[in-house]
């Protein structure tokens, strides 16, 4: 079920109504009901893959239990953990990467391995990662023994199931036991509908409306058209806006849906295009993924504990694998590699400045800040061309277009409508408050993992549950719903 669809709106309304009734009358049933609702939500897409989700959940639950028991009885859980990792990574490798592996092997070595054309189970990247984190935590005494119902609900809880935010067991499961009074329920619902509306508007009013323009340019590149300078820049910029509003809109809807049920999900976006460096960008973009990669990949690889060279290598490997996590295509890996290279340059530059004792004079700080934001944005959108391109040749055509070495395609026109659209979009990403800042008064998400990625105080822009804001958001909701007619799934649903 896509969040920006009529079935989901009906589904969500029914779930919230029934959940509130159960909370008030039969609280012992509310978790079982949420689990049932989550399974229905997943089965709406394809009922047969429900078995995969349930199978993965049950296997991981019992491996986790066995690990916890081993740790409690002071036995090494190593083999169990390795077994669990093999199970999870094997599952994702088979469904997601087997085709890529076979095709690449055939291409490189002239072999004739059969290329499996498997249907990618929805959300597999997300529920696999979440369960890996549970097993690792269990092996390090950081996970208690949970009831099967709680654990299953942690994995399948519908607001985060399909495309995150990636959440840890210990952040979510304790919230299931929370009892809410009527005022809390109303506050949560008011917050939830507001956040959901912001996300829906980002998706249907912005992302879906600019998608055709970026699609046109990237599709032409995919078909071998040599892309002109204007087309390349417009296509790339439109995609940069599309993916931000699409994914952060999805996240707002996920957080809003969960908030209506009294649950807080992780902070996932904090105006990433305002970042002044790539290091900061990854503290503001898809925060739950970057935190996961840091805690379960970068740090186990050695993090920054073995000198600068090893640290840079660890960063690079982490970003490469983070890129590949997005999909079974080498373009995703190159995208990750590009960001790895950016991060290494960024860290090295910082170290150099620190060693030289250089800092920006205070009167130049606004200028350097603006230039830093611009440079970071340019680096990010350059990498997006590789991310979005369907093939290396398409990426090459797009990059050639960006640097003025492409063709003379005239797919898009840079007239006043495009100028007005870009002005509005840049204003939104660089100057407008984000959804977290707007609704932070009622804590719409878990605390950001880093203090330096905290939430700005936006003064008067802060949302409060007044009738005027209710009317404004009610209108925004209706306008966003009216735009639902062109159903396009979220970009991150494919991962």
């Amino acid at each position, binding site marked *: 079920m896509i969040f920006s669809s*009529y079935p989901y709106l009906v589904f969500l309304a029914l779930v919230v109504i029934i959940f509130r009734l159960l909370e008030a009358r039969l609280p012992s049933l509310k978790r079982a009901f949420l689990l049932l609702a989550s399974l229905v939500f997943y089965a709406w897409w394809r009922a047969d893959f429900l078995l995969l989700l349930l199978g993965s959940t049950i296997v991981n639950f019992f491996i986790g239990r066995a690990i916890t028991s081993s740790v409690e009885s002071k036995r090494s859980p190593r083999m169990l953990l390795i077994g669990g990792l093999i199970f999870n990574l094997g599952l994702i490798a088979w469904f997601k990467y087997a085709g890529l592996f076979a095709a690449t092997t055939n291409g490189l070595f002239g072999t004739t391995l059969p290329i499996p054309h498997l249907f990618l189970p929805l959300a597999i990247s997300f529920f696999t990662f979440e369960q890996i984190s549970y097993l690792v935590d269990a092996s390090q005494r950081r996970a208690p023994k949970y009831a099967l119902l709680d654990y299953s609900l942690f994995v399948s809880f519908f607001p985060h199931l399909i495309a995150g935010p990636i959440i840890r067991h210990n952040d979510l499961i304790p919230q299931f036991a929370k009892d809410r009074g009527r005022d809390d329920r109303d506050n949560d619902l008011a917050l939830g509908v507001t956040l959901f509306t912001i996300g829906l508007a980002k998706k249907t009013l912005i992302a879906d409306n600019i998608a055709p323009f970026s*699609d046109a340019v990237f599709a*032409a590149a995919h*078909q071998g058209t040599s892309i002109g300078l204007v087309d390349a820049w417009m296509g790339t910029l439109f995609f940069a806006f599309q993916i931000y509003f699409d994914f952060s809109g999805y996240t707002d809807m996920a957080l809003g849906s969960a908030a209506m049920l009294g649950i807080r999900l992780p902070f996932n976006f904090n105006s990433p295009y305002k970042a002044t460096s790539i290091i900061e960008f990854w503290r503001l973009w898809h925060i739950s993924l970057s935190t996961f990669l840091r805690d379960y990949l970068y740090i186990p690889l050695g993090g920054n504990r073995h000198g600068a060279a090893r640290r840079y290598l660890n960063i690079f490997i982490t970003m490469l694998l983070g890129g590949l996590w997005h999909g079974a295509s080498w373009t995703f890996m190159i995208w990750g590699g590009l960001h790895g290279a950016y991060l290494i340059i960024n860290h090295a530059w910082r170290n150099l400045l620190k060693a030289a004792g250089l800092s920006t004079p205070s009167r130049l700080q606004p200028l350097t800040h603006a230039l830093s934001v611009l440079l970071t944005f340019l680096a990010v959108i350059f990498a997006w061309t590789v991310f979005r391109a369907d093939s290396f040749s398409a990426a090459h055509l797009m990059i050639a277009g960006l640097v003025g070495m492409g063709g003379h395609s005239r797919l898009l026109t840079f007239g006043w409508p495009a100028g007005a659209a870009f002005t509005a979009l840049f204003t939104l990403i660089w100057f407008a408050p984000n959804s977290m800042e707007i609704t932070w008064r009622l804590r719409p998400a878990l605390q950001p993992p880093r203090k330096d990625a905290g939430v700005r105080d936006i003064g008067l822009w802060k949302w*409060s*549950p007044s009738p005027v804001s209710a009317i404004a*958001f009610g209108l925004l909701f*209706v306008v966003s719903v009216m735009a639902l*007619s062109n159903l396009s799934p979220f970009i991150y649903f494919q991962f």
Partner: protein
Amino acid sequence: MAARRYLFWFFGVAGAIVLAIVTFNIAADAYILNNRAGASVETVSGFERVLKPAWFDTIKPDIVFVGSSRVRMAFDPALIDPTFHMKSFNYGVSSATAYETRRYIQDAAAQPSVKTIVVSLDPFEDGEASQPIGAGFDELRLAVTKAGAPTPHRDWWLTTSRYLSGGALGMHALGVYLLARLGPNQSASERPDIFEAYSRMTTAIFRHEMDRRNDRAIAPRAWQMSELRASLAALCNYRGAVYWYFPPDNFAVIARYVSNDADGFIAFKKTVLAAVRDHNAKCMNKVRLFDFTNLNAITRERLTASHTQSTFYEDPIHVRPPTGMMLLRRMLTSAKADAHFGIELTRDPHADADIDAIRAQAAAWAKS
């Protein structure tokens, strides 16, 4: 307490507006579908991708026209139905893509009432790139998936699109506005100022459109040809009649295509012809393929000092509904009176030579 008041206003405002919009859409939909000139709204550009699948499902026509704006403007059911004594539906959408055209063909073939499908071939060559779908297209509204299976929950999508989408609101509002401007007993054909399809090309329009098409050339592209073959495959077991045609752009435009890339233009037509021949040899269904792009009674029209308004065209590539009637008569009845324009390639023993003749025709046109 503040939150409760907020929720009251939020849901109150949203609910009231949704109710108002749904009520308007229901009323407007009924008004358009029951209006004497209502079918002419199918020739209008708006959010037709949103509403036409729902209208198509309701009207249950005998004959359906699929294609781009060249189809949308050429076939007015209000004109066709009384003449041909059939119920027709214009499924043309502005800037239709090859993929959309294939999907609309599939939708038409899946509708049991449809006995005849007429398809304009320009979506299989038009457009420099690429976009698989246009704004507002949603295949969940079509009867079958692209693999040919019934679309799950289709009634749901049709209903929500029809009564609860911004596209439907826009198209309904436009339709009601246009019909309300017609005088008592007036038809769309009498008001070209309202229904653009009926307006006539002038010299200014001709020049403007020709300037826009300076560099246009036509050549078969792999992905579009693959959609064309998929369209034919979808029709293989279809029991009704199928007519495909190369639309009669004004020869000034055709000559430009030939001048820019004669080989590509000819290759496109021959590729289509080969695909159709292959289909006809293999399938129960037989497609009749017409070519109206040659120098003929329609395409050779020129505007002059004494002939300042076109008889056939709204602009150099869009023919008017009366011209659409001529095309239809030519295809459906093979009327001798209309045999002076268009070639039925599938019954033409010299089809390849006739396609090649376009070079000579373009040269003659340039000299005249």
